[in-house]
C-alpha cells in the first residue's frame, strides 16, 4: 500500500513538476524578453527562437540519455573486456564469429525472421478480408485481436500448457499431445525437439501479432477506392480474383509496413524464449543470448557486442523508415 502512495505521490510530483517547469520557464522567458515595450519586435523574434527548446528540453534530455548515449557506450564497451576495464580491440567480435551458440542464435533469428512476419501477415490478411464480409465480423476481430493485450510471458504460460507432456501411461492434458494421440500419433516433449521447437515458439508470436496485422490491413482494405472493385465486378471477376488481383496489389505499401514492424519485434524477441526453453535444445536467439551474457555470464563486452549485432540488423529498417518519414513530410 505504502508503495502505491509513493507511486501516486510521484505522479503528482512528476505531473506538477512537468507543468511547473514548462510554466515557469515560459514565464521567465516572457520576463526577460517581454513582448511589449520599445524592443517588442526584437524580443518576440528572440523568444520565438528559444521557446521551442524549452518545450523540447525534457524530451531531448530523456531521449539522449536513454536511447542515444547507450549506443555509444555499447560500442565502447564492446571493444573492452568482460568488466569493461581493458581495451581488447575486436576480440569480442572474433569470439562471436566462432561461438557455436551465437551461430545457432543467428540461424534461429533468421528462421524467426522468415516465418513469423510471413505467417502473421498472411493470417492477418486472411482474417481482415474475411471478417469484413460478415455480420459478426467486429466480434471476430476483437477475438483475434485479443492476444495483443496478453504479455509475452502470459502467452508463454498459455502455450506451454498446450505443449505440455505428461509421459507414457498418463492422460495427456496438453491440447497438442491430446490431439496427436487422438489421431494415433505418439505424444512428444515438443519444446525439446531441436529445430522444430523453434516453430513451437514462433507460433506464440504469430498468435500474438496476427491481430495487429489484421487491424492495420483491414483499415487499408477499406480504404481501397470502390471504383476499382466495381469495375472488376462488372468485368466478371470472381471474389478470389478481386482479392488477389485488385485488392492486395493496392495495399502492398501497408503490407510492407506490417511486415517491417513485425520484423523489428522479431529481432528483439526475448520473453518467449526465456520463459519456454531459455535457449536450450537449440532454440537460442540473439536477445536471449545477450541477456545470458549480461546476467549469467557477467560479461559486458560480449553482451554489448551481441546487442550491437541486433542494432545492426535493425538499421536497414530504421534507414528506410526515416527516408519514408522525410518524404511524407515534404
Amino acid at each position: 500500500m505504502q508503495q502505491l502512495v509513493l507511486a501516486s505521490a510521484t505522479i503528482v510530483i512528476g505531473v506538477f513538476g512537468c507543468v511547473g517547469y514548462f510554466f515557469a520557464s515560459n514565464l521567465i522567458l516572457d520576463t526577460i524578453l517581454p513582448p511589449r515595450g520599445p524592443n517588442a519586435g526584437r524580443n518576440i523574434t528572440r523568444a520565438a527562437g528559444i521557446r521551442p527548446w524549452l518545450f523540447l528540453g525534457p524530451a531531448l534530455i530523456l531521449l539522449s540519455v536513454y536511447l542515444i548515449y547507450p549506443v555509444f557506450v555499447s560500442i565502447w564497451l564492446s571493444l573492452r573486456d568482460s568488466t569493461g576495464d581493458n581495451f581488447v580491440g575486436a576480440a569480442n567480435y572474433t569470439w562471436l564469429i566462432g561461438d557455436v551458440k551465437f551461430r545457432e542464435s543467428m540461424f534461429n533469428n533468421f528462421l524467426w525472421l522468415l516465418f513469423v512476419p510471413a505467417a502473421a501477415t498472411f493470417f492477418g490478411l486472411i482474417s481482415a478480408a474475411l471478417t469484413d464480409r460478415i455480420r459478426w465480423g467486429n466480434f471476430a476481430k476483437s477475438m483475434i485481436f485479443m492476444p495483443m493485450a496478453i504479455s509475452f510471458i502470459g502467452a508463454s504460460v498459455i502455450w506451454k500448457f498446450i505443449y505440455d507432456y505428461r509421459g507414457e501411461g498418463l492422460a495427456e492434458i496438453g491440447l497438442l499431445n491430446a490431439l496427436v494421440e487422438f489421431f494415433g500419433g505418439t505424444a512428444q516433449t515438443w519444446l525439446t525437439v531441436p529445430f522444430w521447437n523453434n516453430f513451437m515458439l514462433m507460433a506464440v508470436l504469430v498468435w500474438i501479432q496476427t491481430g495487429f496485422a489484421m487491424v492495420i490491413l483491414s483499415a487499408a482494405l477499406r480504404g481501397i477506392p470502390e471504383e476499382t472493385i466495381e469495375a472488376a465486378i462488372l468485368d466478371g471477376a470472381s471474389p478470389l480474383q478481386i482479392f488477389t488481383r485488385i485488392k492486395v496489389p493496392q495495399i502492398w505499401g501497408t503490407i510492407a509496413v506490417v511486415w517491417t514492424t513485425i520484423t523489428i519485434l522479431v529481432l528483439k524477441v526475448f520473453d518467449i524464449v526465456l520463459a519456454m526453453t531459455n535457449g536450450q535444445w537449440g532454440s537460442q536467439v540473439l536477445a536471449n543470448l545477450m541477456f545470458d551474457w549480461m546476467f549469467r555470464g557477467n560479461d559486458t563486452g560480449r553482451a554489448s557486442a551481441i546487442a550491437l549485432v541486433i542494432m545492426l540488423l535493425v538499421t536497414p529498417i530504421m534507414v528506410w523508415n526515416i527516408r519514408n518519414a522525410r518524404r511524407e513530410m515534404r
Partner: protein
Amino acid sequence: MENIAGTKSSLVWSVNLAVLALVLLWTIPTFGLLVSSFRDRDQLASSGWWQAMFSSQQNIIFRAGAAETQRQDGAQWVIDGSVLEAGGEVKAWGITSKDHAAFAPGAVATMADGVSATVAADGAYRLSAGKAFEGRSPRLFVTAVTPPRFTLDNYRKVLFAQGLGRSFLNTMTVTIPATVIPILIAAFAAFALAWMEFPGRALIIATVVGLLVVPLQLSLIPLLKLHNQLGIGKEYLGIWLAHSGFGLPLAIYLLRNYMVGLPREIIESARVDGATDFQIFLKIILPLSFPALASFAIFQFLWTWNDLLVAIVFLGNSADQLVMTGVLKELLGSKGGEWEILAASAFVSISVPLVVFFAMQKYLVRGLLAGSVK
C-alpha cells in the same frame, strides 16, 4: 461494394465457417488456461481441460486416518472414514502402489500385520486389526471416478499464499507513473515539433523516427551502469525513468502526427488574439489531442504492464519489487508442473490488460493505425 453483384450463399457459408475456425483457433489457447485455472488440482493433473465438464477417472493415494482416530469394536480395533472427500465412485482399489486395481469395491484384502481392509464403492473404507494401530497408518491406492469440481482455491492460493497480491501492487507502482510521465513530456515536445518553426526541426523528427526501432537491448548495460552510479540501480525511480525514455519516441511520433493534423486556423486565430504558445498548448492543443493521448496511454500501459525485460534489469528480485511477469517467469522455471498455480497466476496478471483492451479497443486501434510508420 461487392453486394451489388449478389453473393452466392455457399460462399457466405464458407466465409462464416472460415472465420469461426480462425476465432476458435485464436481463443481456445486462452480459454483452455482459463478453464484450468478454476479446476481442482488433482483433476487438472489427470485429465485435459476439455473434459472438465465430465467425470474423470483418477488414481488417488490415500493415507488412512491417524492411529489416534481408531476405536474399539468388540475385539477389533477399527479405523474408518471415506477415501473420497468430494464424492465420486470407487472403481477398484489396491494396497500397494504397484497395483491400484487389485480389488473390486467391497472386497476384503489382508495387509501386513494381520490388518484387513475394505473399500466400498461409495468410498467408505474400514481397516480392522486384532491389536491397536500404532505409528503411521497404512496407505490405500484407489482408482475412482470423480465428478467435475471447480474451485476458487487456486486463486486464493496464488493471491494470498504465493505473494502474487503483493506483486500486483508492485506492477501498479511501476505502471502508473511510467504511463503518465512520458505522455506529458511528449505532448510538449510534439507540440513544438508540430507547430513551431525553428532550425533543426526536421532533423529532430527524423531522429525520433529512427529511435522508434532502436532495440532495448542496446540500452540495458549502459543504463544499468549509469543508474548504479546515480544510486537508483534498483529503485522504482530508475524503472519509471527507463520506461519513460523507451516510450518517448513512439509518444512523440504519435502525438506529433496527430497535432499536425489539427486545423491551422484555430491556432492562428488564437495567436492573433494574443494567446501565448503555452496557453495555446494547454487550452487548445491538449484537449483536442485527447484521442491521441488516450491511444498512447493504452499502448504505454499495456507495454509497461506486460514488460519483463526492463523489470528484471532495473528492479530487484525482492518481494517488494518483483512484478507479476517476474513472478510468472519464476513459477515457469521452478514449478513447471503445477499448472493450477501457473494458470491462476497467469490470469491474475493478464486480467487487467484484457479489461483495458476490451474497454478501450477503439483508441488502441486508432493508435495502431497512426503509429505504424507509413
